[in-house]
């Protein structure tokens, strides 16, 4: 199974991906590689009136750039993301697809006018990264509030859930991974 490709999209602090990579390997039991060599330009996704980035356009840019890559791709950015009808999103993923993007902007306590908490930010980023990658494996939102696939529309809900899958979602994830592997062999 190809590794999960982690891609930083500027603006992003340099150390943001370090511990995330290790944690994702544990959760998905798939190796990860970080590739900052091809810079993704976020400017076309920028909306000046909203001062936000359209996440779906970032995903398309990512897919164009890594069209040849056949593993999962997760981009991380500090840019504030949106989709047109919503005021913001924490991240976006292709359901049962290849790419996902997560923003750390609204995961940072400083966004809410509170003092910075690096460990909390790391934990939230991990949860959102696992959640969006879960979607790329075809998982839907889960009603178990502790499951990482539970839908979170406010940051408190992210804090409430854990960074792991509930047994049912874990089972589904393994099924999907097996299916993917079979398609690779075919």
């Amino acid at each position: 199974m190809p590794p999960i490709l982690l891609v930083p999209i500027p603006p992003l602090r340099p150390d943001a991906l370090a511990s995330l990579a290790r944690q994702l390997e544990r959760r998905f039991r798939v190796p990860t590689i970080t590739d900052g060599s091809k810079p993704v330009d976020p400017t076309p996704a920028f909306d000046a009136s909203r001062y936000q980035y359209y996440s779906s356009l970032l995903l398309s840019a990512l897919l164009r750039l890594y069209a040849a890559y056949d593993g999962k791709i997760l981009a991380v950015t500090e840019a504030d993301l949106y989709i047109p009808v919503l005021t913001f999103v924490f991240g976006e993923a292709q359901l049962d697809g290849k790419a996902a993007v997560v923003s750390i902007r609204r995961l940072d306590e400083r966004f809410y006018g509170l003092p910075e908490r690096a460990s909390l930010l790391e934990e939230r980023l991990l949860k959102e990264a696992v959640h969006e990658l879960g979607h790329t494996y075809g998982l839907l939102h889960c009603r178990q509030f502790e499951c990482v696939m539970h839908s979170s529309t406010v940051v408190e809900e992210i804090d409430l859930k854990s960074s792991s899958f509930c047994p049912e979602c874990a089972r589904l994830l393994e099924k999907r991974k097996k299916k993917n592997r079979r398609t690779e062999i075919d």
Partner: protein
Amino acid sequence: MPSNNQHRSSLLVVDDEFVVRDSLSKWFRQDGYRVETAEDAAAALRLLDKGPWDIVLLDIKMPGMGGLELQKRIKEIDPSATIIMITAFASVESAVQALKEGAFDYVTKPVDPDHLSHLVQNALRQKTLSTENLRLREQMSHLLTPDEIVGDSPEMRKVIELASSVAQTDTTVMIRGESGTGKELIARIIHANSPRKFFPIIAVNCGAVPEGLLESELFGHEKGAFTGAQYRRKGKFELADGGTIFLDEVGTISPRMQIQLLRVIESRHFTRVGGSESIKSDFRVICATNRDLEQAVKEGSFREDLYYRLNVFTVSLPPLRERRSDIPALIQHFIRKYAQAMNKAVSGIDPSALDLLVRYPWPGNVRELENVIERAMVLATPPVIKPCDLPFQVVQAQPAANGDSLEAVERAHIIAILNRNNWNITRSAGILGIDRVTLYNKIAKYGLKRP
């Protein structure tokens, strides 16, 4: 448990902007919903066939038919559709209009994701509750259906037809008929088939309540209104709010009460005895009488204005002797009823006993027939009721009731011919010199039954 197990609720997104359709459908698909999108009203109406949709998200501003107009069309096709309007900031006024026309709620673009997710969940919850409520009401109305009407004679069919056509309206109904013909049963059937069925039907037997008490019975009284009025008490008109009031024996009420009754029926307002507060009640009036009201009006004992107010739609119940062909079915009905109540294995009636019952004139109508069967069920030795189980007056009444009248002779002759020919209708009709249809009519008329 992933959310895709929750019956896959369905969502239809109607918006002319591709990005809105695209982002909303992706967002809701991750929540496990079945989502379809339409770019305009025409496409949305086409997709309604693929429904029913639990929730329709509707953009208020679209080229061609706008969201408000589309909402009306959708509600015409599927009145239970839950519609959420999506608006831009500028169109809050039209969003309010949409709410007035039955939209569940509206959201302004761009919407907070938390708000949208709660809104959709609430809409779904309400939808589930309404569906459940509807289902329970249906079950309840099934339970509320009163005793069935037994009888298939043309006279009874006419009555049932009249009752069911008037049930749907709020018209005042007067039920005429001799004592024991089932006037209250018809009143209950009219109520049970009316839109008021989930509210009570309050029956007042005007003949049974003493004149002095009828006023407080109908209108209620305040505490201390008269000696013994220790508490405030609601009257029957107040209790019937939303439902039906059934005034039985309405012909017996006094002239003074007639005036009061007329006022309350006209204004739907009244005051309790000893009170000054005007009370409003929304009721439908069904009344019943076995008196000749026209005669009473002529004699001056019944007010003419009240008569016209009550006599809007009349259902006349035929006496049992005029629908003898229903007697066998009624007998079977009561035998079943009392066999169950008494736990007695009586399942039928001996032909000679049946013959006696069919020929009896039944001055007390169905009520008398029911009492006779109840009595016979007590005495009968299973499996059938025999003539000896019937009361004396039924057995004795026969010669006096029919005597040597032409009818009695005709009836006896027809029975004899039928029995001789083993109930072969064609042969019997031939011998009697009448056609088959006439013979069938006579069999029905005399309530004859093949032994």
